[in-house]
């Protein structure tokens, strides 16, 4: 026991934190996409496991074929959006229930990703290409690290700003109304089917970008990289809500604070993840760990409400 604790080196943990934060920021982009479907549209979309890998596959293959990494990253948005389109059409045009429709797309994408990549894993080295982001920028030297974090933070704020603006427009309000009360939305002349498809495209577009970025960040696209992605996305959304929900609710720019808390949720998730790894938990058990974290955070609000209710009854 003592030797176990003695073997834990705090310095290793400290050194691994920038990488964990960076990874959290990349997944924060993905979590924003999950927030849009899960909370704003009220649609449990499992497409993301496939669309994040699809975004990565398309992005990495484009880069390997000489396309500029910036353009390749942008294209990964459209790759993700195409995946969202399929789920949306399966749901609205063919009447397949949302969760099932998204699982179908996800499974189909597994084959498509293998076809795009030609094999299950395709590397892209930061030595050979001018990648938009890379873990190496974080670990290499302090200047590059500072540029990475400042640059990525600006990108995230810009993204949150764009989303805040969009969901305040007539179209964005139609999305929120559809998610909140589809009957009311239709009574106000909103084509809720179209809105669903549109929102799934936007959401999966963001997930696709996250995939493109993550592929570059870790230096490879892998057909299995999306497995359990939805769980991480949900973890980020829910950790953000549990920790900062009350704070955000009181703010005038509620949506900005909420989106920010989602990104923070993703970062916190990866900090905890890194911490657990540092405690020498075997990496093959990490999916189990993720599931437990999400289950706990999903249960907290429910159990809290129940406890309050009980107290009320007792009085």
């Amino acid at each position: 026991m003592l030797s176990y604790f003695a073997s834990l080196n705090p310095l290793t943990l400290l050194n691994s934190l920038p990488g964990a934060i960076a990874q959290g920021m990349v997944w924060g982009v993905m979590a924003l996409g999950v927030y849009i479907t899960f909370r704003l549209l009220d649609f449990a979309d499992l497409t993301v496991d496939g669309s994040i890998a699809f975004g990565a596959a398309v992005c990495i293959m484009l880069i390997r074929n000489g396309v500029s990494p910036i353009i390749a990253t942008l294209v990964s948005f459209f790759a993700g959006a195409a995946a969202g389109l399929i789920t949306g059409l399966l749901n609205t045009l063919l009447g397949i229930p949302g969760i099932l429709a998204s699982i179908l797309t996800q499974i189909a994408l597994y084959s498509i990703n293998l076809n795009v990549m030609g094999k299950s894993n395709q590397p892209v080295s930061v030595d050979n290409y001018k990648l938009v982001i890379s873990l190496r920028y974080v670990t290499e030297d302090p200047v590059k690290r500072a540029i990475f974090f400042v640059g990525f933070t600006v990108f995230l704020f810009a993204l949150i700003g764009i989303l805040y603006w969009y969901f305040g427009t007539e179209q964005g309000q139609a999305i929120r109304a559809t998610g909140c009360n589809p009957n009311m939305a239709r009574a106000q002349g909103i084509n809720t089917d179209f809105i669903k498809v549109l929102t799934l495209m936007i959401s999966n577009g963001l997930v696709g970008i996250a995939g493109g970025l993550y592929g570059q960040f870790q230096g490879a696209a892998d057909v299995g990289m999306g497995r359990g992605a939805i769980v991480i996305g949900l973890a980020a959304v829910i950790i953000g809500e549990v920790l900062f929900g009350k704070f955000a609710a009181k703010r005038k720019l509620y949506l900005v604070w909420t989106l920010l808390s989602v990104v923070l949720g993703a970062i916190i998730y990866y900090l905890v993840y890194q911490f657990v790894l540092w405690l020498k938990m075997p990496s093959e058990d990490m999916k189990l760990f993720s599931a437990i974290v999400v289950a706990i955070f999903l249960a907290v609000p429910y159990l809290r409400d129940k406890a309050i209710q009980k107290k009320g009854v007792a009085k």
Partner: protein
Amino acid sequence: MSNSKNNDLANDYVLEIQDVHKVFNKGTINEKIALNGLNLKLNKGDFVTIIGGNGAGKSTSLNAIAGVWPVDKGRILINGEDITALPEHKRAKYLGRVFQDPMTGTAATMSIEENMALAARRGEHRTLLWGVGRAEREEFKEQLSTLGLGLEKRMTSKVGLLSGGQRQAITLLMAAIKKPDLLLLDEHTAALDPKTAAKVLEISEKIIMTNNLTAMMVTHNMKDAIVHGNRLIMMHEGHIIYDVSGEEKKALQVSDLLHKFEEASGTEFANDRMMLSK
């Protein structure tokens, strides 16, 4: 017969329902004939109250007009235009709707002004312009102040924080905001306490009169059905069994309606909630 100022042509009806049929759960043990040869013509400015027992087809009629589901047979026309094949969201531009459940008419997680802005764009293309304009915000404020509920001071409050009566009042404003060809009120006071119900009914009457709207109001309160509107319809088993307007309607008593129902349907009104609310 009714207020027909703008009625130049004989067939110029605001609403025309021709022999509409609707069966739910066809071919199953739960099969229910909801509409059975419904025919109705409304002139401009008509304010029709609709009564009938449970399952008579009152709400179903309004849902058929709104296009919540397709009808099995028959045609529905608004201002002479056949809308039978139009989906629900495309019919919305002709209609204003208020529902029985106060939660149904508004988006709880959105603010009062956002809800009204959504209604103000009914039937229009939703653009990438900001959702609530500055000029219309003042307009909304003014309209809200006419309700006398102090809601004009809470424009950015989430609608979910409001009471059922307040939400129904806002839904009424939203329904009338585009001056619809036809206003559909589906037992919109049934879920409210008596005092709030009376207030919401008063607001409804005011909105219909000031905007000169054509309206259909389903109610289970016979007194309300007699007092309000210029025309009264009684439904039974999916079609209209009694249709009265003008002076004849004004002279109606609740007992007349009960008698009429028994006569037309051959059954008594007993065990129906209409009895309770006479």
